């Protein structure tokens, strides 16, 4: 089994899906000969040609618009938004067209499309290359929202996303692209179903729910506090919409305490939805308030490194929150 990076998992997924199904194509900025700014599409242009790996203009609205139209005509587009920060011009296409098509045509038409977008900060990207946008889309029924945190899940979930008959928002933790490595088998096909969350570390003292880069940090923080005798159960949400409450409730039943960690700013972030559902469905299991650790409510990730560090939840901050909740 080979150890690969998260972005290599994504590249392999697209490579395999392009080879498997000729309806699959990629459209996005610099995805062609350049191989994408993060090299997610490296050498795919050479392998599959300009009709299946298409460089688009700098216009996100048209990237998604092309995807919606092509999908309705039977293609399986993978739209790459270079940075999630720039997805907003395409918001109308995603929310009003892609998400509603199946519903408004009474199931006659669907939009089998994946929108990939690197999200998140901590990479010195400043205001416009660091944003977390998942909560805008988890609010929209008709979409699926997926965020992997390991190379294995990145590959397996992206392949499932390409095969899904309806639109899937696939957000990738860009800070983890090369930082997060993991084993992915070469000899067998890797497919991870959209939907289930995963308990990635078993524990008894508190449950921590996270996704993407924060999940990676939560595992590190859990290691830290384990040496102090605090056993944290870590759950990788993986699919934000639809959410796998069974796994979350099973964990809280065991630990009676829940901490939700996300990088997006606190108010109205995705963790708010988890907290609300736990307050509703896990009330009589709880031995402590449901806690959230998230980015501060300021307009954007600062460019200055010290301020960026202040913004980002990291293993140290997460460990502090874990200790605090464990001692409640």
């Amino acid at each position: 089994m080979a150890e690969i990076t998260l972005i290599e998992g994504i590249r392999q997924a697209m490579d395999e899906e392009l080879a498997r199904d000729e309806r699959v194509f990629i459209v996005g900025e610099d995805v062609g000969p350049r191989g994408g700014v993060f090299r997610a599409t490296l050498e795919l242009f050479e392998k599959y040609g300009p009709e299946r790996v298409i460089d688009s203009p700098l216009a996100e609205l048209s990237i998604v618009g092309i995807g919606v139209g092509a999908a309705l005509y039977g293609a399986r587009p993978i739209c790459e938004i270079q940075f999630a920060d720039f997805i907003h011009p395409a918001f109308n296409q995603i929310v009003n067209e892609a998400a509603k098509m199946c519903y408004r045509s009474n199931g006659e038409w669907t939009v089998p499309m994946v929108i990939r977008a690197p999200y998140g900060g901590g990479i010195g990207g400043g205001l416009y290359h660091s944003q977390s946008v998942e909560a805008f889309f988890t609010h929209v029924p008709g979409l699926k929202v997926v965020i992997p945190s390991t190379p294995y899940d990145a590959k397996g979930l992206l392949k499932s996303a390409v095969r899904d008959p309806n639109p899937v928002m696939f957000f990738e933790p860009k800070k983890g692209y090369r930082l997060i490595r993991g084993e992915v088998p070469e000899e067998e096909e890797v497919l991870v179903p959209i939907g289930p969350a995963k308990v990635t570390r078993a524990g008894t003292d508190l449950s921590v729910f996270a996704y993407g880069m924060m999940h990676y940090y939560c595992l590190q923080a859990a290691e830290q506090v384990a040496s102090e005798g605090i056993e944290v159960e870590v759950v990788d949400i993986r699919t934000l919409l639809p959410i796998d409450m069974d796994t979350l409730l099973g964990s809280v039943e065991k630990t009676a305490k829940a901490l939700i960690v996300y990088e997006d700013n606190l108010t109205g972030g995705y963790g708010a939805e988890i907290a609300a559902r736990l307050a509703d469905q896990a009330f009589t299991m709880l031995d402590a308030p449901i806690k959230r650790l998230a980015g501060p409510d300021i307009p954007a990730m600062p460019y200055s490194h010290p301020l960026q560090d202040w913004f980002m939840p990291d293993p140290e901050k997460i460990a502090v929150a874990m200790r605090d909740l464990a001692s409640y």
Partner: protein
Amino acid sequence: MASEVIMPQLGESVVEGTVMKWLKGEGDAIAEFEALLEVNTDKVDTEIPAPSSGILLRVYVEEGQTVSAGTVLAMIGEAGEEVPTKVPSQPETSVMTETEAVPQVSSAAQAVAVPSAQVGRSKALGFISPVVARIAGEHGVDLQQVRGTGRGGRITKKDVLAYLESGAIADSAVPPWEEPALGELFRPTEEVFGVKQGSIPGTEVLKPGSVIPHTPVRRSIAEHMLRSKQVSPHVSTFMEVDLSRVVAHRQTNKAIFARDGVNLTFTAYFLAASVQALKAVPQVNASWSDEGVVLHEAVNIGMAVSLGADGLIVPVIKGAEQLSLLALSAALNDLAERARGRKLKPEEVQGGTFTITNHGISGSLFATPIISQPQAAILGVGAIQKRVVAIEVPDPAGGSMDAFAIRPMVYLTLTFDHRLLDGAIADAFLGTIVKTLENWA
């Protein structure tokens, strides 16, 4: 505008109820549908939810007081709103318009002490979390006895679990109706329901020379028992059953039922056999009336559930003739569970056409139970015991010979109303139950 909290009519014939416990004190905030108080009637104990959100402005009926249905119990409204100091005279009367000015209800000062197992803040115990309250409630833990290790001495889930594990109290969370031979039905009541001091349920804190005040349940039992004996000439008949086949069947199917989340108990077999017999002998599924004997269409079987010192309650399995052994078991599990949790709805203890009582629960072999009026009969189930019985076995010559065998045996009693039923019919009925159980397949 403040809204009234009214004593509801909890069942057709229930005209009054006793306020057992206020779950909120004056000045406390409460949300619509949140449990506000516990009420006890002669049929059922239940929680009354708040009819609206707001502040509990005034409580008119104290704990322990019995009032008729429709009485205003309390007022809920906005903080500072004026409400009458005394119970508004009639249930229908509109409130608060022309009454004298009332001093504003102060919040903390008049708030009642929070019971230990209630979610929220308790002066003595600090914050009680939902899960701690739940566990304490389920296991009858007195939280005063639990040492808190959480922040500020708070009792954590781990603390209360550790307390339970230490064996400080008998675990009362044994699922009801389980494992009769070893379990609930045929175990001493105190073992099942737990007794803190003393060994006989209901004898704790009894001082000779004192008077135990009647609870509504006690009064109701007394009244019903006396009435039944007065109106109906009771006759009892006994038969014994070899439960070998039932035991074997249960052994085979217990795990299968468990996969559906159902605990298969011996009680379910007695229930199923009774249903068969009631169908075969419909005169027993009947009631006396002046015009004639009313034969009931549905088979609704009441199951007496002991509540320990608090008396007993008889939840009814409706339409039992339509239920499989699995469905009967599931219904039994559910009703008994909720009976013990005081969560039965009033209609769930009404409408029975036949009753089964498991006096074997406390080791009794025979009993002559009293018929639950207006039913025609009641089946008493004794303790299952292994006994030596004489049986016939094939002999080598091809004939048969007598032998001793050890068999799980039980005595069944049928107490019947001689107005409706004669001995022959009653015996035919009880015999059908015996045959069904002995030939269980």
